[in-house]
């Protein structure tokens, strides 16, 4: 096992709200890390810090051998980071397959000059990307929706498209923000299988989810966040045995 992402002494606050308070974490190849904590704990913010949506106040983030905390988002993505979004963030005036094509590594529409002078090579890239997108849509069970507008699908379907879109680039690290929200029935099993397969392929996966039984099912290790702090790390059962943590998680209302 080797470390894909290493977060050290990360700090971030918005005015008075501390979303990362000396966070130290690492994600290893082949590992699925569950990230849990109550609403507002800073889970999404941690993904935003790692992927470059927001800059940290202090601390470092390394991705493979690269220190990435000062790099723009697209550089980090190209080095090997892919993420999904809590609120899906589909490209709303585009079809499902076009949503996926954008994410391919060698995107054929990267520069106008290349479109003019390297038509042949780009045709090959486009072909390759299209085949990959179709295969991914099949894996998440949405191949039949390929030509529909992404925004017109249900929330759960958009979540699955978001996952497929994140898988287009073969990134070494996957950050999945509540991938199961709105996903039901057979699709639920499908997503679990896809996430496991990606980890087996050697990616480091970090999953934020409120569904504890899902986290218990899928994660090798679970990290508990509260008020921007990583409070504990271990198996779900270890964490849920700690009544202090369950009180924080459920606000003391639902002892479980």
């Amino acid at each position, binding site marked *: 096992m080797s470390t894909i992402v290493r977060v050290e002494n990360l700090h971030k606050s918005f005015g008075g709200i501390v979303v990362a308070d000396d966070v130290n974490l690492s994600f290893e190849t082949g590992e699925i890390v569950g990230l849990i904590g109550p609403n507002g704990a800073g889970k999404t913010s941690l993904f935003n810090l790692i992927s470059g*949506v927001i800059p940290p106040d202090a601390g470092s983030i390394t991705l493979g051998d690269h220190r990435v905390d000062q790099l723009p*988002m697209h550089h980090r993505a190209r080095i090997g980071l892919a993420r999904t979004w809590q609120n899906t*963030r589909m*490209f709303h005036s585009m079809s499902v397959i076009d949503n996926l094509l954008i994410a391919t590594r060698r995107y054929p529409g990267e520069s106008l000059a290349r479109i003019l002078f390297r038509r042949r090579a780009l045709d090959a890239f486009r072909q390759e990307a299209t085949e990959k997108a179709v295969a991914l849509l099949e894996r998440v069970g949405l191949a039949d929706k390929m030509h529909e*507008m992404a925004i017109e699908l249900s929330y759960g379907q958009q979540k699955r498209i978001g996952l497929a879109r994140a898988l287009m680039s073969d990134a070494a690290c996957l950050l999945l923000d509540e991938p199961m929200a709105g996903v039901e029935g057979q699709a639920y099993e499908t997503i679990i299988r896809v996430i496991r397969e990606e980890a087996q392929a050697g990616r480091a996966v970090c999953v934020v989810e409120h569904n504890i039984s899902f986290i218990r099912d899928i994660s090798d290790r679970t990290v508990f966040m509260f008020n921007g702090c990583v409070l504990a790390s271990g198996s779900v059962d270890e964490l849920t045995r700690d009544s202090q943590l369950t009180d924080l998680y459920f606000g003391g209302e639902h002892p479980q």
Partner: protein
Amino acid sequence: MEYILTVMVLIGINVILATSFNLILGYGGLMSVAHPIFYAIGAYCSGLLAIHLQIPVPLSILIGAGIAMVLSFGVSLPSLRVSGDYLVIASIGFQLGILHVINNLDFTGAAGGLTNIPVLNEGPSRSLVFVLLIAVVAACAVFLVGWIVEGDYGRAITAMRNDEEAFSALGRNAMNIKIVLFAIGSGMAGLAGALYAHYFAYVTPEQFGIFTSAALLTMVVVGGAATTWGPLVGAVLLTTLPQAITFLGLPVSIMAPLQGVIYTTLVIFFLFARPQGLTGGSRGGGGLEAWSASAAFRARRDAE
């Protein structure tokens, strides 16, 4: 006859302007209103080069367009840091700043304007030849923008406009696209300005102010933002409409404000009732979605 040809020249110029503005604003979703300043830069640079350095007019026109292209960094660089309303404000600042300089320099003719600009072509059928030329250039402009926004590059532009963060997080470089769209769009505006200058032989700073921004915005909105033919339709309508009103024989004191009222009413009406413009389909609206107040667009935006 000469009058009709002159109106046709104006239509051609406005088609080039509206089409290139649509590339930036409609397709790119880049909320710059400074488009007329690149029109001015093309007109003044080409005019001055031809007057003072005796550069052949066709060459000076191309250089004028090239300078407008280079100076588009003045808006594309801010657009990398700010977007939406902030970019509107930054671009107005850029536009008014340069206009202020032009207004106060002696060698640009200051507020009185630049006169005695050499014309591109002379002879008895000068206007007809110019109309044909401008029609060809306008057709090329529409074609060029149509080519840029289709296929793989167009898909990237759309994705960037829909959600720049999600786009960047997928490893795509939004910075390149913004710089390219501003450079090409502004270069086209510069070309339109240079052509204008060497047809009418005279330009004044007031042609390139906020009123022209509003007029171009109206053309794009009325015709249909992020559509191929919208800006063309908008430019034809909004160039001929004011001309038609002049035939009503109203006094100037009513005419001038009336034009402003018409533009404003049209923009507000279309943004509320038909954000996709005259030519757009149900999913039109492009970069103007954010400004549109229509219920359907709001609903879709809030669903994000």
